[in-house]
């Protein structure tokens, strides 16, 4: 409904109208040498340009994002089901972007999630991560791209630095600002960093309705794109492997409570 209201406001047309009237007033002010008309013209031109500059960014329906996000989860679900995996997902922190690595180790700069075949907490060897392998044998599991990596990249672009450069104690503040004020991805978030775990509570998250789909095992394992982006940020900032220990959805996805655990390799 809000989107429909927004669609009805032709902000670009108003800007061009102001710009046109302003330009005409400026020309007239020069002809009749009137300071009053010049002030009016200057102001209208300025506000016309300003409205064009600050016009709303493109908005899409939230449900569209939900449906788009569902596809990668169902793909991961099919893989997990086919390989009969019953393990957990581990967010493995990558090497910081500015660190030099030779070409054959460049894969270590990719943020990946390791989904283990069983409940063991054995992590994949560094060689497999460097080779960007998908299917791993020792330990058995798969390495996939986190569903929240796109969001994480967007966050990093917004703040202009890598999360690995952010101190873990400053992370809750940075993420709250990004998620609530900058991108309006949730109404409120609370992130608490403890020595061995982190607790996240999200109120009215954008991807909340994804949780209505109870069949998606990978959604519980990896978290929705927002939770996944937070897990990636925690992993990068702390430099530790992070797993989602517990995920609780309240009131059909209106509130999500997640407990992350730091895994010592």
């Amino acid at each position, binding site marked *: 409904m809000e989107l429909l209201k927004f669609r009805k406001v032709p902000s670009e047309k108003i800007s061009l109208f102001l710009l046109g009237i302003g330009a005409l007033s400026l020309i007239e*002010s020069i002809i009749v*040498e009137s*300071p009053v008309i*010049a002030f009016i013209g200057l102001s209208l031109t300025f506000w016309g340009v*300003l409205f064009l500059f600050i016009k*709303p*960014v493109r908005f899409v329906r939230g449900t569209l994002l939900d449906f788009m996000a569902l596809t990668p989860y169902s793909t991961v679900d099919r893989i997990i089901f086919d390989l009969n995996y019953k393990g957990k997902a581990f967010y493995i922190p990558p090497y910081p972007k500015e660190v030099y690595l030779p070409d054959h180790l460049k894969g270590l700069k990719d943020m990946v999630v390791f989904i283990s075949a069983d409940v063991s907490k054995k992590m994949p060897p560094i060689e497999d991560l460097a080779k960007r392998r998908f299917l791993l044998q020792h330990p058995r599991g798969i390495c996939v791209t986190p569903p929240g990596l796109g969001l994480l990249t967007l966050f990093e672009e917004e703040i202009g630095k890598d999360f690995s450069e952010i101190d873990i104690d400053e992370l809750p503040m940075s993420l709250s600002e990004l998620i609530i004020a900058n991108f309006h991805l949730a109404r409120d978030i609370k992130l608490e960093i403890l020595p061995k775990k982190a607790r996240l509570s999200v109120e009215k998250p954008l991807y909340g309705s994804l949780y209505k789909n109870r069949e998606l095992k990978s959604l519980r394992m990896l978290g929705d794109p927002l939770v996944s982006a937070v897990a990636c940020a925690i992993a990068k900032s702390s430099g530790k492997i992070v797993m989602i220990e517990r995920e609780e959805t309240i009131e059909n996805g209106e509130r999500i409570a997640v407990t992350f655990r730091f895994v010592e390799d």
Partner: protein
Amino acid sequence: MRFPLSPSDISLWIAVMAVLLLLTSEFLLTSTGFFEKIIIERKRLRLVALGMGGAFTFSVILHALDII
């Protein structure tokens, strides 16, 4: 035919615009409730507001140095 505004007039106009924009951007950045739903590029607005403030300061400096 000449432009009817003097540099001092333009400086005054910039000051008024800077005050208006700084107040608006500050209000929009900290607002909650209804005003929170106004969908504009708040950061750009703030940038323009700061730019206008800077332009006014610059014009005052030029005045003080008797350049304009």
